[in-house]
């Protein structure tokens, strides 16, 4: 954990709430001015010097505050470029990773493209976009390249995996916020002469929603600490990206959305189905994030193959050796 996490989260709580619902042109400069873009860039390279745990906390706040901006994308892009020793251009940098659509592609100053041919940074002038929208109405654009890259990027990392991690952290914030909205609603809405929260059936359903929100928060944290362990080269986590933890967390996002979102809506009744009430801005994002950068089938299969590769004994040894690598050495 970086020492600056608390002031960082305080600032994020305020700013992200202000920016929610604003359009890209108005909101993006304010996010940039606040310095969040260089969160993962080392201080020696002019950045904030934060870690993946900081990013997870920040993205969780973004998810909860319904921040509709490509914060994760630009932070991860600038981390990657700094690591490769490439000067990052100003403005939004997003990703066209494998066949996944680029979040906010049409607004990007530059795009990191990763395919079987390698990884490179392209300027906006080299891109044409097929505009699309996520279930939450956010830009998700498909790229056709029409020009040359600015520079190629040497990386062994699968970038869609890192973006998948970002969706888990954002999802953890959104599901927790959906729980809060739901608790508030059932505690104030009176039917049959008492608040909805006084009905046992409602309490039991709320508990199930809370379980999913808790599981997702812990999964996001588990993936973040594995990423930090990986960057620090700790024990069994040294080497390749922590695919095991990220796959497990992204697959858990799928389950949490599957089980949690219907409960939040059910307990809200018709009010939760209106555009005006904030719940839909959380749940539409959650529904979309479940598919982005690999859906349930993709991540479950990847994890299933990792879990099976060495047999059952190796699975337990892997699970324990990886978490043991994170134990601080006194």
């Amino acid at each position, binding site marked *: 954990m970086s020492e600056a996490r608390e002031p960082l989260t305080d600032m994020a709580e305020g700013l992200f709430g202000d920016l929610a619902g604003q359009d890209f042109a108005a909101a993006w400069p304010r996010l940039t001015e606040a310095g969040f873009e260089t969160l993962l860039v080392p201080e020696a390279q002019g950045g904030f010097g934060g870690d993946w745990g900081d990013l997870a906390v920040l993205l969780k706040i973004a998810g909860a505050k319904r921040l509709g901006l490509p914060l994760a994308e630009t932070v991860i892009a600038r981390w990657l470029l700094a690591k490769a020793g490439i000067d990052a251009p100003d403005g939004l940098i997003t990703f066209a990773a494998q066949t996944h659509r680029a979040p906010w592609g049409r607004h990007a100053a530059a795009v990191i493209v990763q395919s079987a041919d390698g990884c490179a940074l392209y300027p906006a002038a080299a891109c044409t976009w097929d505009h699309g929208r996520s279930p939450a109405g956010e830009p998700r654009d498909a790229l056709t390249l029409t020009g040359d890259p600015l520079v190629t990027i040497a990386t062994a990392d699968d970038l869609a995996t890192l973006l998948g991690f970002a969706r888990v952290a954002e999802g953890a914030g959104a599901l927790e916020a959906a729980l809060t909205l739901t608790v508030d609603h059932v505690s104030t809405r009176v039917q049959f002469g008492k608040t909805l929260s006084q009905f046992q059936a409602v309490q*039991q359903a709320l508990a199930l929603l809370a379980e999913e929100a808790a599981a997702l928060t812990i999964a996001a944290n588990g993936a973040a*600490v594995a990423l930090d362990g990986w960057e620090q080269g700790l024990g069994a986590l040294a080497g390749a990206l922590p695919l095991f933890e990220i796959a497990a967390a992204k697959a858990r996002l799928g389950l949490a959305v599957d089980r949690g979102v219907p409960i939040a809506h059910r307990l809200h009744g018709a009010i939760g189905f209106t555009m005006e009430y904030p719940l839909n801005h959380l749940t539409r994002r959650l529904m979309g994030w479940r598919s982005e950068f690999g859906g349930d089938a993709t*991540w479950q299969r990847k994890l*299933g193959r990792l879990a099976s590769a060495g047999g059952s004994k190796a699975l337990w040894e892997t699970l324990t050796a990886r978490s043991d690598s994170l134990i601080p050495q006194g």
Partner: protein
Amino acid sequence: MQLFAARAFDPPGDIPALRKQVRALVAAHEHRWTLEQRTNNWFTFDAEFSRAMGAAGLVGMTWPKQYGGHERHSLERYVVLEEMLALGAPVGLHWIADRQTGPLLLRYGTETQRQKYLPGMARGEIYACIGLSEPNAGSDLASVRTAARRTPEGWRVNGQKVWTSGAHHCHAALTLVRTEEGSQRHAGLSQLMIDLDTPGITIRPIVDMTGTEHFNEIFFEDVLLPLDALVGPEGDGWKQVTAELALERSGPERYLSCHALLAALIDAVGPEPDDATAQAIGRLTSELWTLRQMSMACAAKLAAGEDPNVEAALVKDLGNAFEQELPRVVQSLITDDLADHGDLARLTAWLLVASPSFSLRGGTPEVLRGIIARGLGVR
């Protein structure tokens, strides 16, 4: 609204070496155990193994040395537990003494009680059970009626306990009784440490739906106990019982009960499963990994001296749902006949039948969700 904060799992000492020690101990004894015993391992009784664990310093790990303990960190103990469970080692005999009864005697017991029970428990030789449920007191535990009356000779106990796991193999039962005549609900309850060879006690096993005798009825007919069988102050029984519950609810036993079946599935399909099987294994592994993270966070909170009451309820409810779903998921995947002799068929058949028990020990889903709802402030 956050009910569950992440916490670093940071035991002291050489944890990989500790795992190696446990794995070697299990390897030295595992030839004795059937597949079904290994998957039912915290209800399987093997005195030789319990004593071997005691000799290896793996029972009563956190207790003071003066009572036979080893003064290890509670998270080191957690590591030993999860290894034993994942490897399917039968730890049923000493399980309750190590998890609940020993710590409770350390906290509330008299010096005489500690000297009498703890060293033997830590050697893996003295076993204890928990006398809580009664025919009319299950989830509603405060309605216990078993009565203990203070007389000049000692406590006179009359009544009945039921669903007492392992009582027929145990030396003593920590028993919740009503010590104040006419008291209601949570008041007037105390706990007595009752030696089960005391005259007037009858233990009758109840065969469960797997065909196993693991739980029991205990009848107390005019049982006379010394006055120093009382644990802690008279009337503190309810407080003692509820203080134990987080210990009982958040441990690795709440999500690893079916681990042997996941392992058998992985070993049966080999290193390159087809898409559907890989997907099912991945889904189960995702839940396993998440539950392990949650359980470790709870253990870390307990180790810090805090009470993870709500977190423990969350882990147990999610963990039980996972354990109960696992055999159903495997059944839906495999083509084996459940009467087949292979590991996969035998484990699936056993766990399908055993799994209803997972959600009844330590609180039903409805009770746990009530605790979570209270944590959310709606109850």
